[in-house]
């Protein structure tokens, strides 16, 4: 049985390492997560269906998925630009700029939320210049997008950067010597190389944005039907002692996250294959 399960190797320690991995994974992640599904089915299916399809919850899916999608797309555009500049150009302070990209990753989300709200309300540092233009950021879906973009940006930059840095210079040079214009080279040579990395970055940013809580609740304004994100509704259900309802919504989100992860890993495998072929 074990022979067909694992290819033989002269290296020791597979079984201890593998067993420990599976045990620890089960204890810390799988068993606790299964609690969500088991708790949600303590209620009747009709009730669960009613909860996960109630108008308020559906509106929150729309916001959470929609804002995550938009934030992911913005992160892709801005992230690609930042990665491009960091890889291709030399300018003073480049090392600093490069280091700062990861800040959203290391900064606690609550701090980020408070800081962003401070910036973007009507009287904030940035908000006061946007308000006369009729652009309201804080307490609108746009504010949610801003917070989620802040969270998502590093994922795109860090996915694209290494691919762009490793991209074969000779390919571009060959294309140019064959008479391709700058734009053609970008579109036909560079873009196809970074496309999988962009997709991975997008998927990571999207998945992370979907569950984000700390930074969003400060800036969202939490208006029912308009700016309530799904994780907030989970909390709201809990406060009404509706554990089954809370876990039902959580289960919907978990399933969505899991599908996203499967997609990410598939994409990463494709990227790797692409890199090997390239």
């Amino acid at each position: 049985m074990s022979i067909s399960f694992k290819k033989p190797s002269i290296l020791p320690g597979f079984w201890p390492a593998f067993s420990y991995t599976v045990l620890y994974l089960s204890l810390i992640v799988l068993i606790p997560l299964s609690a969500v599904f088991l708790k949600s089915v303590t209620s009747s299916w009709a009730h669960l269906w009613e909860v996960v399809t109630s108008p308020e919850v559906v509106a929150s899916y729309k916001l959470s998925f929609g804002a995550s999608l938009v934030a992911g797309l913005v992160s892709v555009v801005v992230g690609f630009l930042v990665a491009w500049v960091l890889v291709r150009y030399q300018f003073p302070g480049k090392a600093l700029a490069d280091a700062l990209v990861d800040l959203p990753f290391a900064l606690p989300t609550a701090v980020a939320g408070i800081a962003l709200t401070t910036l973007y309300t009507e009287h904030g540092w940035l908000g006061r210049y946007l308000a006369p233009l009729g652009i309201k950021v804080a307490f609108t879906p746009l504010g949610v997008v801003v917070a989620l973009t802040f969270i998502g940006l590093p994922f795109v930059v860090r996915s694209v950067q290494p691919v762009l840095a490793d991209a074969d210079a000779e390919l571009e040079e060959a294309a140019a010597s064959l008479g391709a214009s700058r734009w053609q080279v970008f579109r036909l040579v560079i873009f196809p190389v970074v496309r999988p990395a962009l997709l991975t970055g997008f998927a990571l940013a999207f998945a992370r944005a979907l569950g984000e809580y700390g930074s969003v609740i400060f800036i969202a304004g939490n208006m029912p039907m308009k700016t309530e994100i799904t994780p907030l509704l989970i909390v709201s259900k809990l406060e009404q002692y509706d554990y089954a309802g809370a876990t039902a919504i959580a289960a919907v989100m978990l399933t969505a996250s899991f599908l996203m992860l499967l997609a990410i890993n598939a994409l990463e495998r494709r990227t790797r294959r692409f890199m090997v072929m390239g």
Partner: protein
Amino acid sequence: MATAAIEVPRKSEAGARAIRRDPPLVRWGLTVLALGALGAFIVLPLAAVFVQAFAKGVPAYLAAIREPDTLSAIKLSLLVAGVSVPLNVVFGVAAAWAIAKFQFKGKNVLVTLIDIPFAVSPVVSGLIFVLIFGAQGWFGEWLSDHDIRIVFAVPGIILATTFVTFPFVARELIPLMQSQGSDEEEAALTLGASGWQMFFKITLPNIRWGLLYGVVLCTARALGEFGAVSVVSGHIRGQTNTLPLHVEILYNEYNYSGAFAVASLLSVIAVITLTLKKFLEWKTKEGAK
């Protein structure tokens, strides 16, 4: 004739190289755009934290940091990171060893499962431990009969933090160990090294920078986690408040400069983390060469 024939390809070769050097206008335009975006999205929020932290002057800043509740929050955050990071390091090394060095069925599923905590909403990450260890949870009665506190106490905070930071070390080590292959280890074994000798003399030195990098990321996240910890903490002042929770509390007490002072402490940790990370990246590259 002959000279002309040689000159043409030379010219186009130079022209082809130039394709990677964009015209100054494009170069500067894009650089300014990118830096502007970084500024608006990242530098400004950071600046806002520090400006507000020092809004009431340096003495007020120091007073906020030295307050006993702040100090106990710092201690708790360090304790939590001090337990959950080593746990995840041991797991990360074991998982990377099994996944990177061996071929077995279902490997892709295992890799995806390891990534799960990364995509779970922090709120859910906290909730699951309440469902299991809370008074109404699976083990609630047994725990309360035996006077063991998990949620609303330090163990719950450690569990939630461990869950959230679970994938970091493993995710860093798996690709690194995959790219290194196992030739060196196999050589060591053929030369008569024991399993542990091979691990400490060959594998560990090979992965040390990547490992450190994972530790740094994991620590930063462990110190900064808010949502999950908020659900399991119980918010008892001076006892179960971590640094990010303490920021929220100060903020809710209209002590804005205090809240931002503590937040700036977390930001400093973040910046130190990033500097360390840069250094380790550079070291990893050196090591790879």
